[in-house]
């Protein structure tokens, strides 16, 4: 028996790393959801309390974190659809690698304009509207 497991079916490469990324993005989004329900609950306290906390979401650094959040949710959503295809589509397991690169491409296609618009909103709030 070899000590280093080389060429096992599931270890390494796209299959494993997509699974690792699915767990990390899942945990991150879930913990943010806890925070997000609590900050929204401030609407039951007062409009001032809510607006004060929401103001932190409008700062440039937190805006960058929001781009990260959108990226994490989008990866988790697309890879989740890929997992469903692997489970339910007869050809799914055979094309799992191609599907991963497909969703990575789709992720970039959405995230580039998405991040651009999110950062534009932040910049406009900081420096005033651009023509």
């Amino acid at each position, binding site marked *: 028996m070899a000590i280093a497991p080389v060429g096992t079916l599931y270890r390494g490469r796209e299959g494993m790393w997509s699974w690792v990324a699915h767990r990390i993005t899942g945990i991150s989004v879930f913990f943010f*959801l806890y925070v997000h329900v609590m900050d929204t609950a401030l609407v*039951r306290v007062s*409009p001032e309390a809510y607006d004060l906390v929401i103001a932190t979401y*409008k700062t440039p650094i937190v805006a960058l974190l929001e781009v990260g959040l959108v990226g994490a949710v989008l990866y988790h*959503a697309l890879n989740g659809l890929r997992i469903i295809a692997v489970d339910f589509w007869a050809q799914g397991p055979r094309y799992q690698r191609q599907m991963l690169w497909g969703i990575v491409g789709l992720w970039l296609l959405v995230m580039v304009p*998405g991040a651009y618009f999110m950062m534009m*909103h932040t910049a406009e709030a900081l420096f005033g509207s651009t023509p």
Partner: protein
Amino acid sequence: MSLANSRRPSLAAPGSKRGEQRSNFELYSWLFMRISGIVLVFLVLGHLFIMNILDGGVQRINFAFVAGRWASPFWQIWDLTMLWLAMLHGTNGLRTIINDYAERDQTRFWMKMLLYVSSGFIILLGTLVLFTFDPNIG
């Protein structure tokens, strides 16, 4: 949820008898992740698009914005469905992760207890806020 099922799942010898408790819980949990996942793709990506990208993005959000949205039953039902599905989906995901990595029975039990209590609190808090929202609170 499956607090009672605290033993790590292990591979039984081929042909051996099934364990004491027959339960399809893990099958339903697996199915729930896929069904809720598909619904959440639309609810959450829609929510993120409206809140972060459309119009002024997060810069335009304040109490009045929330009051305007929750005046409509459509967004109330959207948000309530999204809250419950996302919380159950995330809680079940974290349950799987705890089962995978917490090795001692005691550790696993208490981590899941903490998870279920905090998730229950968040689901109830969110539901309460949605049902008792008062736009004239100020």
